[in-house]
């Protein structure tokens, strides 16, 4: 379970507080939810996802993940959480360029110390679901945008994290690829019971979400 209590995030330039990116956010996301954070550009979607993903700190308030308050954790523990409990899908795919598709998908599992046989089995399984099983030997730069995004999704889900955070995953995809990606994410959500949190202002993504959190100027308008 993810719980945010009176969370505020400020960005500073020097001493002066420049942007109040998140305003008194109070939010609870239950296990297995499929949620989309939506709102206009600059409303704080990415900031919220980064905070929940333990990539960025919050300025005020409390953020609880699976019963642990994030502010109390060391940098090492935060890295450990990102590795073992989170899966990330970024707008710009962010694959490791020197690793092929198979190695990119299995990367997190290898870091977690899974046996090679189990990794190969799981990579193939996920690759088949995402229809990239014929590209396992290819390097990321040889794939289309849609294929790269599917590899990024496969990498995020392969190790069966508790939460997948996807920041504008369809922003660089055409509508057909966006639809395919959403269908796959929904399927993974129901099959693997993974909590999925999207940020998006794509109508198709919003329509397919089970819960929508609407942000405006860093405040939750509806959830």
């Amino acid at each position, binding site marked *: 379970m993810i719980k945010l209590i009176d969370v505020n995030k400020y960005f500073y330039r020097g001493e002066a507080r420049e942007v109040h990116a998140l305003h008194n956010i109070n939010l609870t996301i239950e296990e297995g939810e499929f949620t989309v954070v939506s709102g206009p550009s600059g409303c704080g979607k990415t900031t919220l996802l980064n905070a929940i993903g333990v990539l960025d700190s919050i300025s005020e308030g409390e953020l609880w993940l699976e019963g642990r308050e994030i502010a109390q954790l060391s940098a090492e523990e935060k890295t450990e959480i990102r*590795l073992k409990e989170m899966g990330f899908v970024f707008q710009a795919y962010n694959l490791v360029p020197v690793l092929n598709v198979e190695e990119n998908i299995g*990367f997190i599992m290898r870091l977690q110390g899974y046996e090679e046989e189990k990794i190969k089995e799981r990579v193939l399984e996920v690759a088949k679901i995402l229809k990239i099983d014929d590209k396992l030997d290819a390097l990321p730069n040889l794939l289309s945008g849609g294929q790269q995004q599917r590899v990024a999704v496969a990498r995020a889900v392969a190790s069966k994290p508790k939460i997948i955070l996807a920041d504008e995953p369809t922003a660089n995809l055409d509508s057909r690829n966006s639809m395919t990606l959403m269908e796959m994410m929904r399927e993974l959500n129901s099959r693997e019971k993974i909590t999925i949190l999207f940020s998006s202002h794509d109508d198709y993504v919003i329509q397919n979400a089970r819960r929508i959190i609407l942000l405006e100027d860093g405040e939750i308008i509806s959830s």
Partner: protein
Amino acid sequence: MFRTILHMAYRNAFLRKSRAILLVLMIGLSMGVMVGLEGLYDGMSIHMIDKTMRSDSGNLSLFAKKYRLENDIKYHIDNANEKVDTIRKLREVRYALWRIETSGLAQTARKSKPAKLIGIDIEDEKRFGKFDEFFKEGKPDFGRNGVFVGNELAKKLKLHIGSKVIFTTQDSRLEIQSVALKVKAILHTTNINLDERALFLPRERLNTLLALPKNTATQIAVMSTTNDVPLLQKQIQTLFPKLDVKRFVELYPQLKQMQDLMSIFNQITFFIVMVVVFIGILGVMYVSILDRIREFGILLSIGYAYRNIRLQVLTEALFLGLTGYLLGVLLGLAFLGYLTYYGLDLSIFAEGMSTFGLDSTIYATIKTGYFVSTFFAIIIASLLSIILPLRKLKKLNPIEVIRNSQ
């Protein structure tokens, strides 16, 4: 996980092929040349020391007390044969011999030079220090009235095979004695002390000339089988407390100094090359990391710990450094192999080199130490070269990187 890190490090190290090849070539070539120079410097001093030991002092030399100070044959060693036999029985002794030596004047019809006449036994000298290798002209046979002459002395006195030379000295009764000798061979020992001043004749003949008993010596030289020469020195000193027992380094401190000087040259060369290697790896690693800042940001954001990045960067630097090292080993071995077998021919400087007691062809020597020390130095250079790039990565905020890449 280590396999994954290793795999990524390998791919990244050789991702930019031209850059990696240039660095590997730079390390390999500079190391090859450095190892070659080390071998040459060492070869030069080792050969000089070896030839000096073989032609003169051995590892140890025994003299009558005061002989070295006064250089007078009245301070001689009696019953040299018996003493040599006793020394030869020691397990740490490979061979021992005795010589008799006197100073005097070598003259021809036109020239004269201060010189020393050394009485030797050819067979003993052959077994002691491969004496026959020093023959530049002529044969190792004295014949009747024969004498061997050092090549520099022969040059100064304009002596050739068959030339006549008269040697004048003072015998043990303080009478002036002269002997007419015929040059049978010219020797080149590279021991400047002998090449410039020595004439050799059979030792029994010299003893007779000096009116000394047959087996009287001024020097007993010992070639040892052990590296612990000081211990052997103590052992022999105990056997012959009335004699001076001196080690090579005590007799030829200048050669030891030269060896130390060569060693300093080697260390300076080594240091310069390692600084070049360090700067090379640092430059390539720094540029490579700046190129991949985004990739490291991504890795950090998905849970790749900073310690893994540190290990990956170190492995990358080691891959580059050690590939260069392997090339350097191959080039160094080829270079040293050639110089050990064929030598470096510096005959155009032969005149000047012989003044310093050097051969005109310098042969290198191969020591495992060159490659071992370079191996560790390259590892250290690789370790040091990543400190700066890692400091850059340590400050990396994955959020900033991801934000900038979107």
